[in-house]
């Protein structure tokens, strides 16, 4: 049999959950398996260098019984991923990986049950290798073939049988980080590297009490800005003042740096920080 044209089999299997916000009927996708066998996993967090792209890929590959290389992990793209809040508190693996692992397990259960039906065997008689379900006599059927042209949506549940840890072959292995080759060659766009057409550059001029966040002087200490002090800087676009916030905006970054350094700003005298070498006195001075 000739290989089916993937374009003519636009089917997919998704594991979804009703979205917490947004229009009725909208949902969030955790896993999508396409008829061509491609696996995409979605997570609301971003990889800040902890390797979650790699770790989440391992978790999905393990529970879904596909190779690690087959799983594409989409992180933090708010138009595609579930809303799982900010990437904080070491919670990616502990908390947000849990529904992803459940989703992978659900998809696997669904597909192996369907394979058992097609191959007329019991689930116990089947093994899965990289998305290929094999029975006795070398009969086999792939995840893609099981999905074919259908659009299958499974509702995410936490009531799902997970793989036994003893059976793990991918999770627990040291897998090289997938992001490092690009990072070592200067490819990735960090937030600091984002460029938009006509982008301007800014710098902030800090008040003398920088680092102190409480007291009547916070936000009320700016006396005046001498705009003429930076009048000769080319491409200066704006001097921004909001309360005690002072910033400069320029067409070129080096000129924003220059303007921030040169801008003459007068501030009221602000209190000096308490002397913490005498902790008791410092503490007593702050109590009402």
């Amino acid at each position, binding site marked *: 049999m000739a290989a089916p044209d993937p374009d003519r089999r636009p089917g997919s299997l998704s594991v979804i959950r009703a979205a917490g916000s947004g229009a009725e009927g909208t949902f969030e996708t955790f896993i999508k398996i396409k008829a061509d066998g491609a696996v995409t996993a979605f997570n609301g967090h971003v990889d*800040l*260098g*902890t*390797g979650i792209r790699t770790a989440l890929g391992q978790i999905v590959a393990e529970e879904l019984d596909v190779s690690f290389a087959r799983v594409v992990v989409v992180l933090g793209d708010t138009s595609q991923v579930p809303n799982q809040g900010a990437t904080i508190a070491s919670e990616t693996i502990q908390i947000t990986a849990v529904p992803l692992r459940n989703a992978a397990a659900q998809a696997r259960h669904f597909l192996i049950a369907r394979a058992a039906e097609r191959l007329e065997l019991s689930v116990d008689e089947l093994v899965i290798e990289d998305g290929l379900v094999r029975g006795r006599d070398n009969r086999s059927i792939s995840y893609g073939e099981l999905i074919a042209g259908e659009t299958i949506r499974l509702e995410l549940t936490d009531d799902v049988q997970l793989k036994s840890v003893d059976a793990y072959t991918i999770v627990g292995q040291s897998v*090289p*980080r997938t*992001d*490092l*080759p*690009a*990072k*070592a*060659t*200067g*490819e*990735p*766009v*960090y937030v*600091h*590297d984002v*460029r938009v057409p006509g982008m301007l*550059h800014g710098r902030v001029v800090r008040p003398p009490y920088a680092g102190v966040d409480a007291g009547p002087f916070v936000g009320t200490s700016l006396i005046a800005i001498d705009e003429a002090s930076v009048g000769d800087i*080319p491409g200066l676009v704006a001097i921004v003042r909001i309360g005690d916030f002072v910033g400069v905006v320029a067409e*070129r*970054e*080096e*000129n924003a*740096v220059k303007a921030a350094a040169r801008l003459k700003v007068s501030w009221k005298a602000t209190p000096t920080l308490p002397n913490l070498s005498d902790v008791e006195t410092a503490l007593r001075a702050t109590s009402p």
Partner: protein
Amino acid sequence: MTQSTIRLTVNGRIHDVTAAPDTALLYVLRNDLELNGPKFGCGLGECGACTVLIDGLAARSCVIPISGCIKRDILTLEGLGSRDHPDPVQDAFIREQAAQCGYCLNGMIMATKALLKRTPHPSETDMREALRYHLCRCGAHVEIMRAVKRAAGYTEEARD
């Protein structure tokens, strides 16, 4: 300072840049040439994230004026190698998984490259000295030192 046109050679290509001569090289590399390898870290020449090679020597591009770069070869991380054809130093850092966020990685790799150019068989002290003023806040130092040793050919597998 008024703007003028300055000719720079970056990664083997010639660029005519219009900027004040005292403009730090980093701003030209990042904003005019749109290179992402050299990073803005401190802007004070203290952290090393902006390191490039100028005529083979490691230099902090955030404090080097472009007027000092005329008729010199500037090499950035992008010019060193690519994902398909990494420089041996890049390859060593990838193999040793010597980064977490990777923001300091540019400086670590470029400083190692410069070290091995001038000292092909560095001692442990040479390596530590070369990277001493490159800051990594994630704490990947152990892997970074392993990567430098691998790049220098001191790792068992690196020799075969």
